[in-house]
């Protein structure tokens, strides 16, 4: 475990005393920049960025997100599988499925020329 710290100490000892602080500072900066780039890239690639409502311009989205569902959907993995258990599962299942119907299904028509008023000739002036 002490091999790496020892090697770092050895390497630092080889550097002339007047440069040690500069090299240490440079290495620290490089490592910090690399880790920051890595963290930011993970933030972008993982999809967190696309769902981050704290970004500017997402105030409206924040109000449209349903508050955390407090309903109990937990179904026990143990116990008998009788009529009562089946009914309990079906009720919770239907409730959850029903909730998806309240949300858009990313209708492709929302980006059509008509929706974006891109084929509205009335606003075109003389060419």
């Amino acid at each position, binding site marked *: 475990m002490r091999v790496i710290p020892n090697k770092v100490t050895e390497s630092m000892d080889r550097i002339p005393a007047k440069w040690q602080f500069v090299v240490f500072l440079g290495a620290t900066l490089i490592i910090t920049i690399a880790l920051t780039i890595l963290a930011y890239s993970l933030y*972008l*690639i993982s999809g967190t960025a696309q769902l981050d409502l704290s970004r500017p311009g997402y105030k*409206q989205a924040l109000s*449209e997100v349903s508050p955390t569902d407090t309903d109990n*959907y937990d*179904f026990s993995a143990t116990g008998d599988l009788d009529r009562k258990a089946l009914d309990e599962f079906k009720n919770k299942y239907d409730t959850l499925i029903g909730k998806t119907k309240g949300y858009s299904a990313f209708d492709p028509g929302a980006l059509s020329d008509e929706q974006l*008023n891109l084929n509205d*000739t009335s606003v075109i002036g003389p060419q």
Partner: protein
Amino acid sequence: MTRKPIRHFLILTMFALTVGLVSVPVWAAETTDESSEINDTQAQQIRQNCKQAQSVLQRLQSTDVATRINRGRIYENLLNRLIAPFNSRVGANRYDASTLTGTTSAISQKFIDFKNDYISYADSFSSLLSINCESDPRGFYRLLTNTRSARERVANDIAELNTSIDRYTDTFMMLRTSIEGR
């Protein structure tokens, strides 16, 4: 004497650069199919209606992210808190859970596709909003066409998720009939 620290310094620099370059996201290449090409009249229309279109797009982007979060929560609850424990319980009671498990895998896979395709769609949408449609209407329309395709993929994922969920419902109903018939 001072060569080794310099070498270490260079290695660290190379490492930092490699990490930076490798982790920069690769943006989707722009496709140029016929549907994304526009004539001069259409370009003029886009220029004229640019501000209005961008305002509609901004509202849509905001609605979409809320929809993605809301739908995502429902699918996660469905899979983790309801379906997975139910499948375990079916197995624990010595009933055949293979069909249920197979359908559950299909739902999980479609949910993963939905999440990944949404990321591509959101990236494409952000690029679309960053382009100035007044100065570059052709570039704007090309990106709009890409974003439409990405949105269509997300819509297909939801349709397929719904189909898999319907299949699970059917399998559950068959199991229920067989259990209650005993």
